[in-house]
């Protein structure tokens, strides 16, 4: 709690305390914490002298401002029509099978979260997805398995 308070205060000192500062502050929290917790939102509200609900309203409007804890690797599969026609549903099915979670969920080891997202601008190379900030295109079920294995291996090496 004290850490969140420090973080938010620092961000407010940096970006200001007007309504326009709200988004940069929320982005700053995402960079540090990956998601914006209830406590963080209350602190933002306090710093900016606005209501916590207003912070919540803004945070929930933007797809990349998360209000729930996510896994270390956030997978965002493009859900828009071109990727859908390129087989996005099979990609999601494969991811669900490999990760043993449903869309919107996080794995038990808190490594992966599976989400859908709006257009990633890769329509010519669909289906496309992001893993954190890394784009992957022209996906097939085989490719998806390999990608996931790569991240799992990476984790094993770290430990």
């Amino acid at each position, binding site marked *: 709690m004290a850490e969140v308070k420090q973080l938010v205060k620092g961000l407010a000192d940096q970006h200001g305390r007007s309504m326009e500062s709200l988004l940069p502050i929320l982005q700053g929290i995402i960079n540090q914490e990956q998601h914006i917790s209830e406590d963080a939102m209350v602190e933002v*509200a306090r710093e900016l002298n606005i209501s*916590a*609900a207003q912070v919540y*309203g803004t945070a*929930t409007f933007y797809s990349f401002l998360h209000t729930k804890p996510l896994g270390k690797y956030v997978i965002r599969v493009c859900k828009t029509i071109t990727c859908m026609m390129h087989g996005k549903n099979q990609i999601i099915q494969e991811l669900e099978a490999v990760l043993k979670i449903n869309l919107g969920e996080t794995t038990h080891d808190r490594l992966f979260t599976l989400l859908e997202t709006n257009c990633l601008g890769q329509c010519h190379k669909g289906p496309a997805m992001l893993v954190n900030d890394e784009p992957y295109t022209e996906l097939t079920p085989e490719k998806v398995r390999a990608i996931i294995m790569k991240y799992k291996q990476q984790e094993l090496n770290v430990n």
Partner: protein
Amino acid sequence: MSDKINLKIDNIAVSIHSGATILEAARKVNIRIPTLCYHEDLCVAGNCRVCVVEQSGSDRLLPSCAMPVAEGMEIHTNSMKVRSARKQIIELLVSEHRADCTRCYKNGKCELQELASEYIIGDNGFIDLVAHKGYTIDNFSPSIIKDDSKCIRCQRCVRTCDQLQSISALTVAHKGEDMKISSFFDKPMFEVVCTNCGQCVNRCPTGALTEKTYLDEVWSALNAEHKHVVVQTAPAVRIALGEALGMPPGEIVTGKMVTALRRLGFSSVLDTDFTADLTIIEEGNELLQRLKKVVKEKDTSVRLPMTTSCSPGWVKFIEHAFPELLPNVSTAKSPQQMFGALAKTYYAQKIGVDPKDMVSVSVMPCTAKKYEADRPEMRSSGYKDVDYVLTTRELALMIKQAGIDFASLPDDEYDSIMGESSGAAVIFGATGGVMEAALRTAYELVTGREVPFNGLNITPVRGMESIREATIKMEKVLPEWDFLEGVELKTCVAHGLSNAKHVMEAVRDGKAEYHFIEIMACPGGCLGGGGQPIPTSPEIRKKRSEAIYREDALKPIRKSHENPEVMHLYEAFLKAPLGKKSHELLHTHYTERNRY
């Protein structure tokens, strides 16, 4: 006049000041354009599109509530294009609205229903989306029910909570088809900063936000054998109840209301005004005690300015927003709760009824009073002091259900020993009223003379201006109060929590040198309360206010300390203001609450 704009609406010439909207211009010539998101008290949102009109020479339809008039405009409010667009807009709104009208609390009083009926929304081509939306109903609060399935996202509630009250307990969350009106993390209204003021309820066009009703409980109590049901009526109910029963705003219906309550079967019909007078005695004495401790004894543990505590919306607001200022709030309970505590002690003893057989009901212009009655502190009699709180609207409904023709009722008088009241109590219902009542009493206590205002009318604290200040100089005081000689008593009155916030920020930052502050959570004070008849507007509140001051002027007793039944209460029961009994029954404490 050069700043007049001339235009034609449905071929009728209109001349109106520049900056006015097409909607205002149309109303000027009595053309009704339907609206949903528009409300006179709020800023323009322009999001429901029901008010669209056509302009000659333009392909696009214009939202008349948001569009300013321009010279030479030719507007059509009823062209084929407008009518079909409007109908389709209403159909689309209905497709996402749980149109369970016959079972809805707002049945017959719903603005969407009215429009749907006017435009004959049949089985249309749109899929009913309600089943796919996963809507929730939040009915945990003792005051307000929020039913998302009835919400049309017009955002009147969001604007009310933000602009009038500066709370923003409700906000717009998520986007696109998932967009909804939400509290912080969609928590129940009961758990967030909501003050239960009910201003959103008063402005919601549908049944998405309603008061929690206790009609069934009250009817059961009235029909139960061996139950003595006492009822108290707040000052602002008597000048607004008529509106919900077909009368014009500003009608005083005190006598008819008393008759109606007797006919409904209440065993004792008593008056919150009685305890309003009592509040003035307790609160006035508390103010003088605080002044004595601060000015004379230099006691730094006692805080000034003192603020009033009769508005439960205000009390919950300060508990959330300025917990560090809670010691500034008067410890006197609100008139409703003083009444409740006395009903099951003093009154029950006097009439020989066991308090466990007594049911205490109050009729209030307020939804926050329901929450107040539920607070754990409000059980000083050993029982729940006030069992059920009804709003003005609910009482009107009871009267209708009972088949009573209200307009033709004869007048009647309140029952005695807790039914007498002064003009000072009546004006509790208007912003500035508590201040005026307190000054009438406190000034006389200190100087032995009446307040130096013509007809006891302390006009500087009256009116609808958002924040008002008044100063009274204490001169030729009685020996007991010699430390107040020459002191200028500085007072401030604010209504609507947005204004309250400004005042309290000034107090917190040490920028205000007031002694006494009156705050009412609702615009106009209780007369504009969240439990009052719908609709409300600046015009309607003005009429209610005039009625309140008329009622005050008509009262033979104008000062709280001259109320004979209150004097008797002190002699026979309480003994002295701020005494031991008063402390047990009439004073309370406050709780710091969370920031969201």
